[in-house]
Structure formats: structure tokens, C-alpha cells
């Protein structure tokens, strides 16, 4: 189909792409048959940009060569240095998006220009904008940003629109946690409330468990082994979702881990999870007993302790019919179909809410003293989107000519505790108090769109002069030069057979294995690698596959692929 829109779940640890076809939304796979693309970017020894599994392999061999979990830094000024080059989270996300776009194009045999991308419901304005920017770099037009838990609910609800039910989506991914309560009736999928934390996920459980084990068993982890250690701990954490104990081997030392270890290490995280659940329930105005089912999504929701928390609040309500890894991507695909007005989903309407309160900074005059820094909310959190609301503010004094309208997002009375979104300067407000009645008054209108993005418009009431958005300053945003440089950096390279995904993967895996082996095995492996590199370098297409296969066979003997 022409102009097809794809759905993308751009995760902290894994990303997935999906498409709606023949009445179903389904995930797409790459040449290796993988649906889950690790959200990791790395630079190979020769400076090629690696993404996904090859990047993951590369990272294992050389932790400094790449970066993972960059989604956590979206919307900030964070920078990573990869082999001496400096990369921003937006650029890294762009690389992943480009890879997903490539996967989709390959699987569907068409070019893809636009996408629906899911973001954590609790993402703020700046984080959303950063996601849009990443898509732009990757050559994708974003048709809609959809909240991850909403997408999960859509994945569940689009095939049974007539069901009448109240759903709680519990989304504990690699790096973010969202809880959303929805109501489904007559084909309407209505989000009632969302709450969350943008830095709470499976990776935090891994971190805590790792710390716990290090101090319990007095293990010393050298920097160059850190990635290996983390991988081992992570695997152990996942094993504990199935059994009560597990053992792993780390540089010859056998480390045993129990459910108790994990529970003890994660006590504080679990408290936070309970807090968010509570908040969302209160915000929805629906007693917990009215929730009919709980959808658990995100890989980390598989953990025993997490299941127990859910079970304790919603006994017997967990619905296992959705795939925790794929649900969000599938939902994003459904949203794409909704935008395309696909007839398969014409009976469905989705409404979502704004997860944060939006407002401006005001000063108050109390007892003759002017105090700055109060937050004046304009749009309350959990208001159904889109919404447009306005408030009127005025200057303190008729000689005051300028207002610096600072827009904030958050729940505190004080702006210093909320998030700065951007500012907007207005002037021409001084007036003669005898002549003009509404001299210093400004109407500030906030419009929150379906993507969870804010537009601000200020109108000076006396002159009806309007000023729209154009924030002068937004944290974590790039200027023109940076954008140019980033585009340059991300320019798609001509793909050498060496860089074709399966080959690249084999090579990276081989390099990693090379470091583990010794003696004859190592020498043998070197021989295989040499041959493979040679045929790749010659671009000898007849040979590449067969030589590659023998390399792989050898590697599987020495260390079976997972």
C-alpha cells in the first residue's frame, strides 16, 4: 500500500516496528528473524555506526564503544562520547528509528515515510519534542505520538470494541513506568487517568540487584568487565521470574541469586511502584474494585514481585492475553490504521489525557511584598485531549512594559519544583491607567494537542495583538548548526556487504568470542574470521554466505547463540 504508516515502539532497551494489514496489526522482523531490536548504538572499530544486535555484541566486547538506555536522557543536554565522537540521545534514537524504518521497508517492499511512535505517557513536552526531532533525523514524519499504555490498551481493545470494561494498563518497561486507567464502551477507548515515572524500569531492578550482589558476595568488577557483569546479572534477574534461585558464572566465580535477593534489593523500587498505582487510581475517580482487568506490558512486568504487587491490589484481575513485549508496538500499528481511516477500525475512537498539569509562572503580591515563582495552572492533569483553555494575567504596574511568560509543567505550587517548558516574551504593555481599562491584561491560551504537545498563544487584550509559541528557549533543544552537524553525522552510508546486518552481527559476535577463547580455539577462530573478512572485503557475494556459515557453525560449537 502506498503511503503506509508504520507503528513504532521506541523502547529503552528494545524497539519494535509494526504495521496494520489485513485487519490485524502485526510486528515486523529483520533479516535475522528478530522482532526486538535492541535500542543500542555503537561504533565499530572502523567507525561504522552499528545498531541493534551487532551494537549489543560490540558493547559486550567494548563497553565504551556504544551506548544503551539513551531514551532516559531524551529531552536533556546529555552527550555520550563514542570512540571520541560525541552523540546526543536524539541522534542515537534517530539511528534506531532509521534501522526500524529500514526493517519495515525491507519487509513490506515499499518506501516508508511516516510513523506513529509510542512514548511513555509520563513523557514531558521536551521529551516528546526530542522524539519528534529524532524521527525527523531518521527521515520519518510523525503522524502521532501515542502514549505507550494507551497503545497497549488499543492492542487489546481493537479486536473487541463492543466489550464494556474498565482496564488498568501496567507498563513496566526497561526504563519507564506508566500506569493508565481506561474505560472501553461502545467502541470508545477512553483514557481516564495516567500516572508514572520516567526513570523507573527493569534496568533499575538490574542495577539494584547488581549492587546488592556486589556487596553481598564482595565481588570486584573491573571497568572492562562491567558490561559482561551487568549482562549476567540481568539474565539472572530474568531467570528469577521463572524460578526461585539461579546461579551464574562470572569470570570463574559461581554466583548464586535468590528471589529474596531480588526482593530485598528492590524494596525501594516496589514502594515507588505502589505509589504510582495509588495515584493513578485516585486520579481516575474509580475505586480499585471497579477495575475489571489489568493488562501487564513491558518486559519487567514479568517479575514475580511485580506480579505480587498487582495481585495484592487487583486479585485475579490480571489478563494474560496480550504479549507484554509486543503489545505497545501492535497498538501503535492500530493507531496508524486509525489515522489512515482504515475501515477495519472505523468503529473505534480513542481519547487520551494529558498526564501533567500545564501552567505559567506568576508573582504574587502579599502584604506589599512581591514574591516570584508561583505556579498558576492553566490545564489540569488528566484532562481529555485535545483541549484549549485560557487564563487572564496582568502586569503589576501600569508602567511595566514587558512580561516574560514562563511555561511550566508539573504539580507543585512552586515553579522551581516543576519543569520549565519554554518562555515567551511580550512587550507593549505599559499604558495610561486613566485611559485604558484592561491595559496590562494578557490572555494566555494553552492548546494541548493529541500528541501531548503544547502550543501557547498570548493576546494582549487592549490591542488584541497575538503572539504564538516560538519559545525562545527550550531545554535540550538543538540550534541550527547542531542540527546540520547531526544530519551530516547520520547521513546514510552506502552499505558495504560487511555492514549488511547479518554479516555485521556475525563479525561482532566473532570479535567478542575471540576475546573469550584461548589457545587452538582462538587460532582457529582467527582463521575463520580472516577468511570471512577477506570475502567481505572482496565483496565476493558467492562466497560470503558459505564462509559466513562456516564461521557461524564454528562459533555455535564454541558458544551456542542464545
Amino acid at each position, binding site marked *: 500500500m502506498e503511503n503506509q504508516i508504520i507503528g513504532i515502539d521506541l523502547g529503552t532497551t528494545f524497539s519494535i516496528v509494526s504495521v496494520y494489514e489485513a485487519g490485524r496489526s502485526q510486528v515486523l522482523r529483520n533479516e535475522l528473524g528478530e522482532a526486538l531490536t535492541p535500542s543500542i548504538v555503537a561504533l565499530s572499530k572502523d567507525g561504522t555506526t552499528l545498531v541493534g544486535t551487532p551494537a549489543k555484541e560490540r558493547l559486550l566486547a567494548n563497553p565504551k564503544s556504544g551506548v544503551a538506555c539513551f531514551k532516559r536522557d531524551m529531552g536533556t543536554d546529555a552527550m555520550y562520547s563514542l570512540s571520541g565522537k560525541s552523540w546526543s540521545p536524539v541522534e542515537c534514537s534517530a539511528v534506531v528509528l532509521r534501522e526500524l524504518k529500514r526493517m519495515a521497508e525491507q519487509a513490506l517492499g515499499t518506501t516508508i515515510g511516516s510513523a506513529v511512535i509510542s512514548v511513555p505517557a509520563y513523557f514531558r513536552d521536551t521529551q516528546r519534542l526530542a522524539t519528534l526531532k529524532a524521527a525527523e533525523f531518521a527521515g520519518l514524519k510523525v503522524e502521532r505520538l501515542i502514549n505507550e499504555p494507551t497503545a497497549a490498551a488499543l492492542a487489546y481493545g481493537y479486536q473487541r470494541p463492543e466489550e464494556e470494561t474498565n482496564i488498568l494498563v501496567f507498563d513496566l518497561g526497561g526504563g519507564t513506568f506508566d500506569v493508565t486507567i481506561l474505560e472501553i464502551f461502545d467502541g470508545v477507548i477512553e483514557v481516564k487517568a495516567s500516572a508514572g515515572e520516567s*526513570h523507573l524500569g527493569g534496568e533499575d531492578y538490574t542495577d539494584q540487584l547488581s549492587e546488592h550482589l556486589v556487596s553481598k558476595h564482595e565481588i570486584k568488577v573491573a571497568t572492562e568487565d562491567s558490561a559482561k557483569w551487568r549482562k549476567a546479572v540481568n539474565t539472572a534477574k530474568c531467570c528469577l521470574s521463572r524460578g526461585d534461585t539461579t546461579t551464574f558464572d562470572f569470570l570463574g566465580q559461581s554466583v548464586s541469586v535468590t528471589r529474596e535477593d531480588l526482593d530485598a534489593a528492590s524494596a525501594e523500587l516496589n514502594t515507588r511502584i505502589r505509589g504510582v498505582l495509588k495515584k493513578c487510581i*485516585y486520579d481516575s475517580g474509580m475505586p480499585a474494585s471497579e477495575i475489571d482487568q489489568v493488562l501487564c506490558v513491558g518486559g519487567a512486568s514479568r517479575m514475580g514481585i511485580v506480579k505480587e504487587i498487582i495481585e495484592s491490589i487487583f486479585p485475579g484481575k490480571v489478563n494474560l492475553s496480550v504479549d507484554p513485549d509486543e503489545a505497545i508496538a501492535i497498538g501503535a500499528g492500530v493507531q496508524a490504521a486509525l489515522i489512515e481511516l482504515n475501515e477495519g477500525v472505523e468503529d473505534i475512537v480513542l481519547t487520551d489525557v494529558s498526564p501533567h498539569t500545564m501552567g505559567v509562572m506568576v508573582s504574587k503580591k502579599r502584604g506589599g511584598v512581591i514574591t516570584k515563582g508561583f505556579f498558576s495552572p492553566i490545564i489540569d492533569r488528566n484532562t481529555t485531549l485535545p483541549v484549549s483553555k485560557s487564563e487572564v494575567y496582568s502586569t503589576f504596574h501600569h508602567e511595566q512594559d514587558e512580561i516574560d511568560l514562563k511555561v511550566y509543567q508539573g504539580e507543585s505550587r512552586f515553579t522551581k519544583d516543576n519543569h520549565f517548558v519554554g518562555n515567551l516574551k511580550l512587550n507593549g504593555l505599559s499604558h495610561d491607567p486613566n485611559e485604558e481599562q484592561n491595559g496590562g491584561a494578557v490572555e494566555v491560551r494553552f492548546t494541548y494537542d493529541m500528541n501531548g504537545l503544547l502550543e501557547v498563544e498570548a493576546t494582549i487584550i487592549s490591542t488584541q495583538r497575538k503572539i504564538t509559541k516560538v519559545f525562545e528557549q527550550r531545554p535540550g533543544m538543538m540550534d541550527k548548526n547542531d542540527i546540520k552537524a547531526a544530519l551530516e553525522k547520520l547521513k546514510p552510508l552506502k552499505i558495504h556487504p560487511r555492514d549488511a546486518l547479518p554479516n555485521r552481527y556475525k563479525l561482532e559476535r566473532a570479535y567478542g568470542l575471540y576475546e573469550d577463547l584461548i589457545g587452538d580455539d582462538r587460532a582457529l577462530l582467527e582463521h575463520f574470521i580472516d577468511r570471512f573478512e577477506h570475502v567481505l572485503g572482496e565483496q565476493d557475494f558467492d562466497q560470503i554466505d558459505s564462509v559466513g556459515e562456516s564461521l557461524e557453525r564454528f562459533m555455535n560449537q564454541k558458544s551456542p547463540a542464545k
Partner: protein
Amino acid sequence: MNIWSELGIECREGLTQKDLKRAYAKKLKGTRPDRDPKGFQQLRKAYECAQLMLRDERYVEDDEEEFVSDTPPVSPPSDHTIPQLGGATAPVELPPLQRMMQAAHDHLREGKIGTALREAFPEIEHYLLSHPSEYRLWSSMLSELYATFPVLLDPVEGWARYIPSETLLVGELQSDQHYVISALTDYAVQRDDFELQKHLAQIIIDHQELLYSPRLVPLSSSLCLALAIPRVTMAKEIGEVAYKRASASSHDSLIVDDAIAFSQATFILERQPRKLWSDILNQRVSAKDIQENETLNYYFRGFLGKIIEDKEMVNFVKRCASYDVIRLINHYRPSLSIPEVAGAKLFNDAYISSATPPQKQVEKKRRSWFKSLICILLILKGFALFSNISKSSKADLDEPTPPTVELAPEYREGLAVMREHSILKRLGERIGMTTTLPLSEEYQERIRIYLEKQAKEGRIRAKHDLQFLMERGVISTESPYESRYADMSAEELSKAKELLSAVDPNLVAKEVKRAKKVEELLEQRLRQKAKEGDKDAERALKFFLINRVSRNMHENQDDE
């Protein structure tokens, strides 16, 4: 268009939420939020309004009952019509929660706090348990109640006693707005009501969810203070939870505020006593490190607040009080909490005392009768001077000059700002004025007179302070009143000033009265003489009047 036609249904008796949903869903298919945002917003508004109206049992049968019972629904009395948006409504009975709140309000207004606490609020409590969805409404009503409560509830204890009631807590915990607790905390802090602060702090500890309330975080610093003095472990508890949360999540609406820093510091303090200070002392950690590193920053500020509680620490402080540290404190000054200010002051004093010579032991307070006697004598002496009776007094005492220290300019500036602040603060307390810069002319003159007087009494520090303030331009070198002295000789001037400063502002009222009498007499006689053409008397009179101006100033301040 009214809400019902917007939704495409008729407003009729027995309308259920289900009917409403069905109608809304139907309309929504043609008014999709992304295709027709304007139309959608209108539809949504109508839907939400209608839902609210139906929720109110006044108008329509509870739809749940309809499903549960088989008996036909009882039709509501005919005069209960559903109001239209914007249309006039007939006066209707208040819904239950409002009614109960009204009752509580009435009790309070009549001063029957006990009744409110024993009867009205428990009733609400009971009601809310079975109607959890109304907590929100309730908490907003409570906040209204708060707005009027300083009037309604005096003494505050009545209110404070109500606070631990389960009703309030359940509501507060549910609503996550925490109106009442935050409002009360605000109130307690403003009034310096330590008991109430402690009380609230206890509640927050008992219900840790409250700690997560962003609304409360900025207030918790004073709460921690309230707690920390008698209950260090508790403060630690707050600090630990809040700190962990704040540092582990970037959920930035939870900020590490003074409170957290403070209690965290208390917490760290036990584990690594004085480590930070000794690091600073041994220059392992520089002020710059502290400023740039968030964690050190918290610790530093927390320690600052702890100093006053630890006698031994003071010695450390003295040795750590380098220019850099002073500068750092200076940097934080606008946001320091009360205990931190106290710590900062210690630093400041330690620093200043290392730069100025030790203060001379001030003579014991003279007895008041003696004071007044001197006062009178001096006035008489002043009179005598102008009548050319007395001889000139002996020369000013030689004062030792302070040792000069060679300081780098920026070093000096930092020191100067600190000193300026401390002098003004001290003086402000003494002569009862606010010391925000720039000082008004009157305040400048007051300070000048006060310091001059003290200097005359042999307080070298006062003299230095005065000099210093003038150098800094905090008070002008020229007295605004100086021009009035213009035609006096140098000796007369110094005498006059002596006279001016001699009038002790701390005279007891009786003595002032007596002095006044003498003054009156003096004035009369001076006027008399001046009238008779005595030039000296005329000048003396002028002087006398100026003198009185300053006297009045002191008196006023005594009145305050």
C-alpha cells in the same frame, strides 16, 4: 445549544450514566478528536457536565440500584428538574456532602469547635467511607474552609486537634492535593508555631505517602527542623525516604529541598562525622567542588544547618572559615533556611573575628539612675558649653588601630559583603529596623548616631563598623543632617555630636520624662536668650533641636 442537544439525547427522568455513554459514543464517531478538535471539545464538555449532573442523586435514580433491585424505580418528585447550562435553577436542597460541610462550617462559625469535631466531622468521615469518589470534592471544600479558618478557629489548637482525625488523613491521602496539611504547614511556619509544626511533621512521618506530595516538599524544611531537635531519628527517616526518592528518580516535581538536605545531612553526619569539614579543611574539597557537585552541595548545606547543634563543630568551623567557604555561603544566602543561617553566622563571625581585633570587654551596665543622671548632666553640660561656662573637654582617647592585613581584592570583597550583611543584621536587631539595602536616609542617620555613640563608649568595633559601612557606601560619608552643623567650629561640632550620642535610647520612661522636663526648661531658656540676641544661645538652640530629633527617633523605636 444546550448540553443535551449537543449529546443528542433528551433530558428525561431516569436517565442513566449508561444512556449518556451510549449517546456520547454515538456522537463521538462523527466528531473524532483528531479530525474535529473544536467539535470534540464541545461534545466532551457537554458529556462531562451531564455526567456530573447525573452523578448527583438529587436528580436521577442511581443507576446501580436499577440493576440490583427489581422494584420499579421511584420517580423523583416532579419539581426536581435537571438544570440546563446557563439556565436559572430553582433553589434545591444541597447534596449530602455539601450539607454536612455546611453544618460543620456553621458550628465553627458559632464557635462550637467541640461540636464540629465530635459530631459534624465524624459524620462526614462516615459518609466518605461509603462514597470514596467524593474525596476530591471534599478536599477542595476543606481548602475553602481553611481560607476562612484563621477567623473561624481561634485558638488554632481546635483545628490542630482535628488534623489527626482519620477523616482528614484518609481524604488527604486520597486526594494527593494535600490542601489542608500544606495550608496548615504554611500557617504554622508563618506563625512560628513550633508545636503545630511538630504535630504536622509527626503526621507526615506516620503517613509517608505525604512525603511524596510535591506540594509539601518545600514546606518540609521547617517541619524537619521542628522534628529534628527532639527527634533526630525521625528527621533522618524523612530525609532518607525523600532523598532516596528524589535522587533515584528524575521525577523532578520531587525536589531535594532544604528539608531533604538537612535531614540527609543529619543522616550522613552519623556515619561520616565531620568528614566533609575535614576535607574542606585539608583542602581535599574546594568550594568550587561543592558548588558544582550536587551531593556535596546538599551535604554542605545540611552541615551548615547542623553546626549550631554541635559544640565541637564550632572549632572546626573556625578553622574552615576560609574566604572560599565564606563566598560559598554567600552564594547560598538567599535560600538559606533558619538553621543554616545560624551556621552561616557562625562562619561569618569566626571569619570576622580573625580579621578584626578582639572586642574590648564592655563595661558592666551602669545602673539606670546613674545613666539618667549623666544624661541630665550632659544636657546641662551642653547648655553650659553654649553659655561659655565650661572649658573644653580633654581630647579623644587614643584607640589602637587594627592590624592591617594584606588581602587579595576579591578576597576582600567577599569578606566585605559578608561583614556588611552581618553588621546590618546585628544593628537591625538592636535598633529595630529592617536592613534591606539601600538604606533610607533616616536609617543611615540612625545607624550613624548609634554607632558613633557606641564608639564613644569605647567600642572599637562600632567605630570600625561605621568606618566600614561608610567605605562601602552603605551609609553616606556626609550626614544628611551635617549641613545644619555647617557654621559650627570643629570643637563645637564634636561636642555637639557627643551630646547627640549621649542620650541613651534605653532610658526608662520615667527618666525620659525627667530628662524631658530638664530639656523643656533648657529649651525655654535658650529661646529666651536667643530672643534677647545672644548668638551663642541661638546656635545652641539649633543644636538642641537637632539633638531632640534624634532623641525622638530613639523614643519611637522604644515604643515599637
